[in-house]
């Protein structure tokens, strides 16, 4: 992965970073740290349309990535059918979604149903699904980053992406924990339960979306990547929360949108495959868009604050 200085072409030019790493902001209270501006200047992240259009070009610009979308879905589907999955096939549309969307809409449904729905087998099935998900997520991240950097994508790009596996696995597990928290809160908040569940998905994407990209870039190791991902997400003016919310909303709408393959059955029609391909492509486009957004600001992300001894 190259470490050359880069800028996006065209009219958009990110501000030059300072010579040294940006000064860490003063430490604040919990709510303040969530909602108040974190840095003294606006982040250079591109807007929503700019990110998505670049994400789209990144994905469809590589035969390897397009082929991997189709092939990975086919392999996952055949594996599921061989393990006894009966459908609906349309659940596969979120198989390439970022966690915790994929965790909530695929991992939490298909593996438990294969494992009989209860007992320790469910936990084993869930863990297996997380492993597979993490590997796919990491592999795609590797290819997307190399494509964004203008390098030639190949099968090795996907293999190199596997170095982000610990981070994507941590993201899957973290997302699963968030989903459980959301489920625990749901009965308490009553009529707002659906809103809470959606908020959990948004928070999960917001927290973890950049983490594998950071690992691929070699900026941090596993847990450092997640911390840096959070700092990047929270950069003032980045619009990351809105971007994550847009992604979650699109995923949920597409999940429930009537489409071929939403009945039980293990022999999907051509139309069902096309619908799943299209939605999966959108997920990978969002993944590429997140990677692009991080690459645009990687040198502006505040460094971790060193806790000062004796500070109260």
């Amino acid at each position, binding site marked *: 992965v190259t470490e*050359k*200085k*880069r*800028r*996006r*072409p*065209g009219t958009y030019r990110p501000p030059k970073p300072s010579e040294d790493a940006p000064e860490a902001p003063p430490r604040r209270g919990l709510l303040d740290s969530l909602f108040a501006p974190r840095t003294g200047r606006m982040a250079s992240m591109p807007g929503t349309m700019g990110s998505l*259009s*670049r994400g*789209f*070009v*990144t*994905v*469809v*610009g*590589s*035969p390897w990535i*397009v*082929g991997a979308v*189709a092939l990975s879905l*086919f392999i996952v*589907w*055949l594996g599921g*059918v061989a393990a006894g999955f*009966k*459908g*609906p096939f349309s659940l596969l549309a979120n198989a390439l979604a970022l966690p915790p969307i994929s965790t909530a809409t695929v991992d939490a449904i298909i593996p438990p149903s294969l494992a*009989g*729905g*209860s007992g320790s087998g469910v936990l084993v099935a869930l863990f297996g699904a997380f492993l597979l998900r993490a590997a796919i997520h990491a592999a795609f991240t590797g290819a997307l980053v190399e494509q*964004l*950097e*203008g390098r030639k994508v190949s099968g090795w790009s996907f293999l190199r992406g596997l170095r982000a596996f610990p981070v994507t696995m941590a993201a899957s597990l973290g997302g699963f924990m968030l989903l459980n928290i959301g489920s625990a809160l749901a*009965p308490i908040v009553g009529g707002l339960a659906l809103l809470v569940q959606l908020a959990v998905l948004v928070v999960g994407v917001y927290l973890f979306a950049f983490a594998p990209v950071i690992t691929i870039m070699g900026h941090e190791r596993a847990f450092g990547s997640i911390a840096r991902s959070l700092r990047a997400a929270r950069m003032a003016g980045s619009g990351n929360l809105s971007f994550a919310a847009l992604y979650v909303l699109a995923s949920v709408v597409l999940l429930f949108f009537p489409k071929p393959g*939403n*009945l*039980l*059955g*293990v*022999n*999907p*029609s*051509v*139309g*069902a*495959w*096309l619908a799943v*391909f*299209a939605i999966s*492509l959108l997920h990978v486009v969002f993944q590429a868009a997140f990677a*692009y957004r991080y*690459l645009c600001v990687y040198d502006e992300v505040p460094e971790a604050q060193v806790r000062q001894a004796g500070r109260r």
Partner: protein
Amino acid sequence: VLLIVCAMATVALPFAPAVAQTTTGWAQFQGDAAHSGVAPDGPEPPYELLWHAAVEPGGPSGDQGLSAPVIAGELAIAAAPEEVLAFDLATGDEVWSIPRALGPPSQPAVAEVDGRSMLLFTEGWAGHPPRSGTTGPTGPTASPSTSEEPAAPVDSRLVAVDLQTQEQVWEPIELTEVSRSGVTVDGDRAYVADTRGELFAIDLTTGDVAWSVSIDRTVDGAVAVADGTVVVTGRGSAGGSGATVAAFESIDGSIRWRREIDSPAAVFPSAPSVGGDLAIVALSDATVRAFAMDSGDERWSSRPGTTPTLFESAVVQLDDAVYMSDSIGLTGSAYRIDRSTGEVVWDFAINESIIRGAPVLIGDALLVATSDGSLNAIDTATGERIWRDVRGGSLSSLAPAGSVVVGVRGGDRAGLDAFAFNPSGRLVREASPTTPDYASNFANFAIAAVPFAALALVAGTLLASRMGPAFEDEDEEEE
């Protein structure tokens, strides 16, 4: 030779879990006191519609349909909210009707006592019928609010009338709450439960209550009886305890065993199906559980699919197989389960909702009616669908006997439908959509993937040349 013939007959015939002293036909819920769901006679597919008897929905808001029908002699009998109707089995013409105090349309039963055919049905809504708009013509009957005190004296009763004269045989039995269990008859006893959890055993000869016990749970499903054991299921509480299965001695009502289902999601149970050594119950936690009839010990628990069909439903039992249906949303399926192990032998994805009613077995054909209005016949040996009919309105609660199969139709064509053997009809062999066809899988994938990839790559080539690279090296720019 006689011994051999007898032995062969014993092997060839499915066991009869219990033979109630009933008239021939389909005299009560799922055909007999054990609710085996097996028709001793009845037409095999293919079918044709023999007749349709239109019955307007009634009840407080005009949306209550008919109960599951029973068949006695030449009559098909069903309870409407405010009357009990009898139809000619051959023509569908209404033969007679008798008034009934407004109540949920629970399935009646027919018994034969001292040479007299007797129709038993429950009536009344215990003084507090549901508010309008809470039910549908074929949907679940709403339960009166348990927190709501009766606005009038409890009027829930068990009524017995002579099938020939439609006159009362004995004074109605007063119940403690509204009853939706329908009536079960076995020998000289009738059994009925109400939503307060009171289980009554009534002497059919005298009309006296032989005994009554309380399980302190709302009972929605029919009471099952076999080999001197009465089995009843009670509803759990939402967010609390699971459902209850309890067994009593039929002689005196003394308890044999009681099992609380240790699953918070198992709030709603189906009616029990009992026979041989097992009582089998489907539950809302997507499980089907088999309990030993003598001890109540759980023999096996199976999770064949999604939420089983629970309302006015029970599994079908033979000596080696259990059949059931489930449905969540539009994805209803039928299953065959090994009776000794609980393992799924086959499934057939009907892919329509199956909200109400149980499957029934005629010969080698399992009949499943769906809320989307289709009647499906599935070969029990192979799990293939061999016949299907679709008409408007929902279809549920099948009652096969003699030469017809009667079912309750809902929606715009509310009433009863009767199907008979169609000599010119054709059977098909249709595998379940859940049977993998890997060649078809690969072909459809390839047909979809090639244009998808081609389109994406053309778009990618055009857009990439227009947008240029994502980043430019600053070193190059400086040069």
